[in-house]
């Protein structure tokens, strides 16, 4: 996977003369490599706390990719919500279930093999489909989309999904309290 992404990223260099674009592509490639590595470590490391820290790297990398794609508001939200809130939530979860902190017992080989098989199959099929379908599709980020644009879109066209999401959050809040409380 890493090789494919890097190859695509590097391959583009001679095709465009624009220097900023080259810089962007290099940045993309480096971040992507770090993200994929961290993600891989996250799902394989035995230490749960390390896994959470690797998750932080992946999420931060995602935020950086959002910046490259010109989505500034989402990048900021990603940092605030994911790294600021969700990861902290995970750390709390790990702390409260301290029995499994530290080394996890060895996995059964059979299951890992099955999981790896499915994952590789998935990667191959989607990778093939993407390369087949969007081989040379390009796009330019002329100007980053502003927060105003995003908010206009949310509060006019997507007001109903927005309200639905708020109801969902409320329901999840109540649900989490009901499930986790002691009685």
């Amino acid at each position: 996977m890493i090789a494919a992404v890097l190859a695509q990223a590097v391959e583009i260099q001679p095709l465009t003369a624009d220097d900023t674009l080259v810089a962007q592509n290099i940045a993309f490639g480096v971040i992507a490599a770090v993200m994929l590595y961290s993600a891989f470590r996250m799902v394989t490391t035995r230490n749960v706390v390390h896994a959470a820290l690797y998750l932080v790297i992946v999420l931060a990398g995602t935020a950086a990719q959002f910046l490259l794609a010109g989505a500034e508001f989402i990048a900021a939200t990603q940092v605030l919500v994911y790294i600021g809130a969700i990861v902290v939530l995970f750390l709390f979860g790990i702390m409260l279930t301290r029995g499994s902190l530290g080394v996890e017992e060895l996995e059964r080989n059979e299951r890992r093999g099955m999981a790896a098989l499915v994952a590789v199959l998935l990667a191959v099929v989607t990778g093939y489909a993407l390369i087949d379908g969007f081989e040379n599709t390009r796009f330019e980020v002329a100007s980053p989309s502003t927060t105003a644009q995003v908010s206009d879109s949310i509060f006019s066209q997507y007001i109903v999904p927005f309200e639905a999401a708020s109801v969902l959050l409320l329901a999840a809040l109540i649900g989490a309290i009901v499930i986790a409380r002691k009685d």
Partner: protein
Amino acid sequence: MLLNQFLLLAAGLFAIGVYGVLARRNAVLVLMSVELILNAVNINLVAFGAFNGTVTGEVFALFVIAIAAAEVGVGLAMVLLMYRNRKSIDITQVDAMKG
């Protein structure tokens, strides 16, 4: 930039996330892997949004973030409950549906 850069990155993250969901026994790690999958989806959404030149993709990425937050909240509450009842968060031990 090539659209495929983003899409392939997302595909890679997605596959790794699926591996995590399927292989890990620690319920918290499974939830983290689910976050990885959702992130991959977000990258796709933003990339396609930028490709189309609209903010629609970003808006939906925002919704996904909100839903992910809700999912983590409920998921961790369930893990806590499981820990309280079984003193373990090994999801392979949860096999009440065994035939």
